[in-house]
């Protein structure tokens, strides 16, 4: 490719601001379109004798529907290629999702098979004034639904709870991180993460035992348990929720604060759980609020129920290591985690 491209083309349209080109290296050229807003795209290639023509079509379409069925709820995810207005409503046992102004009709091939508690999935295209694409999920009776869409606007996440469970019947797994030959992070004056995690977890268990009957700890002593085994314990028990307890570290002492993680593929109820845990921890410990993060963490990813991992404070930070070594702080942290769990269970009823 020769280097005689126009560097920049001003477009100033509704969708595209400008198009620019730049050379990446000897045999790669990048063409960048600056868009006004998040818009989906599709790439089409046509071949004509010895020339290729690439067409990039900017449009918002429904790309994928993903349904995960857990033992007591259903997680429905819609992936859109751009920002789309939508409305969710209920008609007795039907859950109705209306998409507004999609640029293309929904491709019926992306509709999943009806299975489990889904009896039927219907698609109706209503084009009166402005076009609406309606999906109707016919379910066996369901208790409630919640729209929990995460930060990015091109995914709609809906959780549907199947049936009511009595509060005391909830099975809760508390997972104290690390243990045995794996000390976890070690503070500047030698406090180990594994002992702090276990102390907090045991206190959470004590507090929750007053009102709940089924609490399982993945370890009750200082021993090593693999990540796979931890997820397995929760899955075998068919737990209703999973909370992993950790304290944080970084390579320098400046980092501080509290954060909570969820797995990217489990947003709905896990996000509600994480929200509750993070709020109670931040309010009660009064450390920097580092927010809720979504990452590819083993135990929260492979557990088949709503799951969150809390990082109470930074053991690598002098001041916070000092806090973590005091009994009163451990009790405060455990109290906040227990409150977050109870609040979540109550909200879900």
């Amino acid at each position: 490719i020769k280097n005689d491209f126009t560097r920049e083309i001003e477009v100033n349209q509704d969708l595209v601001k400008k198009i620019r080109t730049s050379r990446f290296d000897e045999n790669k050229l990048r063409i960048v379109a600056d868009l006004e807003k998040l818009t989906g795209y599709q790439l089409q290639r046509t071949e004509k004798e010895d020339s290729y023509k690439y067409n990039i079509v900017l449009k918002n379409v429904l790309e994928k529907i993903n349904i995960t069925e857990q033992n007591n709820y259903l997680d429905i995810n819609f992936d859109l290629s751009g920002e789309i207005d939508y409305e969710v409503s209920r008609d007795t046992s039907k859950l109705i999702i209306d998409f507004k102004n999609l640029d293309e009709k929904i491709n019926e091939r992306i509709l999943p098979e009806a299975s489990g508690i889904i009896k039927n999935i219907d698609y109706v295209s209503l084009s009166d004034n402005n076009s609406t694409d309606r999906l109707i999920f016919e379910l066996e009776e369901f208790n409630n639904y919640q729209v929990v869409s995460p930060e990015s606007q091109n995914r709609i996440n809906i959780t549907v709870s199947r049936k009511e469970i009595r509060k005391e019947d909830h099975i809760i797994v508390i997972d104290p991180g690390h243990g045995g030959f794996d000390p976890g992070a070690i503070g500047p004056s030698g406090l180990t993460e594994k002992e702090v995690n276990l102390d907090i977890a045991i206190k959470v268990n004590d507090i929750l035992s007053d009102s709940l009957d089924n609490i399982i700890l993945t370890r009750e002593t200082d021993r090593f348990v693999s990540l796979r085994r931890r997820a397995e314990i929760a899955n075998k028990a068919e737990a209703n929720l999973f909370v992993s307890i950790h304290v944080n570290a970084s390579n320098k002492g400046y980092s501080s604060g509290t954060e909570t993680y969820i797995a990217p593929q489990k947003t709905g109820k896990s996000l509600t759980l994480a929200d509750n845990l993070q709020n109670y921890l931040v309010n009660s410990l009064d450390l920097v609020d580092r927010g809720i993060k979504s990452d590819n963490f083993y135990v929260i990813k492979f557990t088949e129920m709503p799951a969150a991992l809390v990082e109470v404070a930074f053991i690598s930070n002098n001041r916070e290591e000092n806090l973590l070594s005091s009994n009163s702080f451990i009790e405060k942290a455990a109290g906040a985690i227990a409150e977050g769990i109870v609040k979540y269970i109550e909200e879900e009823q």
Partner: protein
Amino acid sequence: MKFKKNATYILLLIIIILVIAFVLFLRYNISAPEDTEKEIVLYFSDSGANNLVAEKRKVSTKNLYKNTLEELIKGPRKEGLNRTIPEGVEVLNIKLLDGILRINFNESLQKNHWGGSTGETMTVYSIVNTMTQFVEIDYVEFIIEDKKIETLVGHMDLSRPLSRNNKIINE
């Protein structure tokens, strides 16, 4: 008249030779970038370990991947950034297959690590994001002393290759 005609032929010949030389020059330059320098991007941790921040550096294109990793291991030059890879880490070997870059590190990456969810994500994504700047690399797989791992220090799932994480970068 005849002299003038000859001169025209000679001029034409010179032009043809120049064109051929130019084409050969271009060709040589494009097909043999043996040991040139290239500007690359390295990602390091900001001081609060909230985000990764880019630092540009030049490396030799011979053994580009290894050179890039070695610069990453050396740590940042910019003020206010922190290293993401512990002391003593060495790259034992690297292999690129079907867009997956498999990096075999020595055990120091695990043994000398400071731990923490934050510490682990900074280390892992500084490596993944740095290496996926090369368009031919889509995923990075972590291997320690020739063995597949479940996790680096107890949080992230490293049993399968990871793709780029742009959310963690602060530009």
